[in-house]
């Protein structure tokens, strides 16, 4: 064989036609099915009062399930091994893995002076390692449970949990309007204010010390502030027919809607009620303002295009632009604490009110509720932006439902006596 031909033949074998990336189609696979992390919460041991351990465990399990982040394994499916301590080396992780747990929570509760204290440990089962070891303290077992749940959310997501917050809502029963405060899990209701006149639209001051309300004490809508520390209830501002007031994120201003001659406009004033100034000036109805988290913009509802739609404007009233173009009855915008989404209520083509979120940047609308009663409305964001609470009639009577922003997990948390409406999720505790 000719040596040159031999060499070329060898060369052809040694240098294959390597595929080039440009020859391949590129396919994007997005939108994975995000599923909750299976987690086992072993019953918390208690030194002293065993009820504290039981109650704390129950609250933690409930909060973690409500978060939508975790699939809390049924405690009937496992038995805590008394020989297991808190050191990772003493825990038989294979046993927890066998029941499907990917996370494990263990704690011991004890009283320390006036407080309940939990020695909390969180483990990653597959890796057999400890993710968190800390001490959590609270005045009561229920509050302790919420704080433990917040610590677990924090370790998995890096974000602050919202279970130590509260939700205010209006309850109407037998002609009485009540301002009611719930824990974030819908339990532990406390009536703060009871009125025979109409109460509407509670909104928290960012420091959590006051709740702004629309009251009909004077026979027409006015803004009133309820101070939680001493229960003082006082009128704010002098603009007639003012309603739907919301504090700016820095707590220095209040945006609201006021009606004059049948025309509603969006206004802003200082938090002491002075310096009221009209932001919109349009013959159409402009109402329901909601602040962006940075306080620079406002979302509001206007029917200037013929049907109620969501609009955005700068905090000085300039730069108005329409945000929603789908649906013909969009209302109650609520800007998410992260700033990227607005939740709102919309009536769809079947005349059903459902919840939606719209992306501020793209205007893309996603649905949260569907085929779950005839009315799902009044969304309010948890301060970490991970959950929404809203009013729903899915079970007949109005109740509060908590859901993730995609609506994949929805839990009715409060209902029963009276008609609950206008939930307002409070800020993080100071």
């Amino acid at each position: 064989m000719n040596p040159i031909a031999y060499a070329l033949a060898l060369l052809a074998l040694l240098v294959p036609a390597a595929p080039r990336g440009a020859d391949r189609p590129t396919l994007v696979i997005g939108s994975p099915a995000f599923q909750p992390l299976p987690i086992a919460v072993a019953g918390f041991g208690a030194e002293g009062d065993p009820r504290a351990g039981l109650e704390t465990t129950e609250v933690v399990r409930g909060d973690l399930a409500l978060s939508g982040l975790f699939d809390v394994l049924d405690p009937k499916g496992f038995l805590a091994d008394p020989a297991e301590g808190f050191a990772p080396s003493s825990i038989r992780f294979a046993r927890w893995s066998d029941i499907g747990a990917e996370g494990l929570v263990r704690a011991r509760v004890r009283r320390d002076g006036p407080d309940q204290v939990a020695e909390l440990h969180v483990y990653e089962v597959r890796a057999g390692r400890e993710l968190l070891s800390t001490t959590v303290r609270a005045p009561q077992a229920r509050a302790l449970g919420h704080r433990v749940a917040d610590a677990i959310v924090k370790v998995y997501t890096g974000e602050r949990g919202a279970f130590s917050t509260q939700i205010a809502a209006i309850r109407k029963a037998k002609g009485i309007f009540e301002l009611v405060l719930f824990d974030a899990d819908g339990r532990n209701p406390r009536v703060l204010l009871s009125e025979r006149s109409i109460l509407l639209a509670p909104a928290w001051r960012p420091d959590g010390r006051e709740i702004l309300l629309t009251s009909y004490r004077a026979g027409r809508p006015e803004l009133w502030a309820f101070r939680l520390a001493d229960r003082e209830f006082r009128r704010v501002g002098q603009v007639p027919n003012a309603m739907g007031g919301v504090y700016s994120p820095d707590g220095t201003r209040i945006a609201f809607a006021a009606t004059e001659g049948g025309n509603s406009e969006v206004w802003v004033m200082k938090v002491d009620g002075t310096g009221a100034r009209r932001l919109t000036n349009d013959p159409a109805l402009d109402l329901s303002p909601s602040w962006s988290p940075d306080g620079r913009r406002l979302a509001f509802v206007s029917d200037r295009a013929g049907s109620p739609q969501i609009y955005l404007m700068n905090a000085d009233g300039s730069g108005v632009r329409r945000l929603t173009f789908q649906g013909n009855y969009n209302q109650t915008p609520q800007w998410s604490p992260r700033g990227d989404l607005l939740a709102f209520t919309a009536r769809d083509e079947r005349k059903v009110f459902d919840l939606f979120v719209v992306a501020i940047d793209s205007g893309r609308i996603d649905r949260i509720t569907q085929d779950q009663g005839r009315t799902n409305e009044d969304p309010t964001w948890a301060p970490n932006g991970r959950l929404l609470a809203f009013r729903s009639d899915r079970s007949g009577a109005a109740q509060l439902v908590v859901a993730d922003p995609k609506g994949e997990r929805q839990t009715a948390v409060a209902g029963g006596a009276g008609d609950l409406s206008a939930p307002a999720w409070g800020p993080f505790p100071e």
Partner: protein
Amino acid sequence: MTASPVQSALSRRERIWPAVLASAAAHLVLVGWAVVRQPSPTIDLEQKPIVARLVRLGEKKPEQWLPRKEAPPPAPAAAPATPAPAPVAAAARAAPSTKGKAPPQPAAPASAAPGTGQSLSSILNKVRREAVAEKRYGDPGGAADGDSDQAAEDPYLAQIHRALRAHYVAPVTIPERERLYLEASVTLWIEPDGRITRWRQEKSSGNPTFDAAVERTLRLTTRVPAPPEPMRDALRRNGISLVFQARQS
């Protein structure tokens, strides 16, 4: 005198050595050239990615309508037993306003609650709602088993997309902000009968939890629909580039 066979063989070997050396040198030069010239990334990031969905056969949905979820709503969660509220007496301690006068008692606002007075119109509305709810929108050129109301660029890629999506599960504990930019790139080779023979990770997302979810997806997806004839050879030899994203697409 004639040369012995051994001497003859040795002389032939001596003659071939220069050719062998020249061949080896040429190999080295050409292999080196090929390695240098070979483009290092196997994925052309400039190439337009394809977002593929298998469009459902049906009438186009009006654009101004609000979106509907493709999946049915989640199972209703039972409402907890409502605890007894704190005594209203506590509310009575609310300090009266210094400015507010004794309020008149306006009539309660008209209840918006449905069901008060079942009328013919409400029944008709209900029937209309149900009729609209059952309508599934798609595209006149869609597939009977399509699952989207938007058309894909390539029907076969849409089928691959659907096969992978069936196993594409990630833990929800991945922070949402991270989801916006998490991406893992993979090359996948497909046999003419649709079997997935191998895959290779080209670029990690940087998040081990997300990478594990991608790996689990590929491990569980052992087969996709058989490729159409024109694509068979290319998919078997060159494969297909997959970009797994954690965000919605």
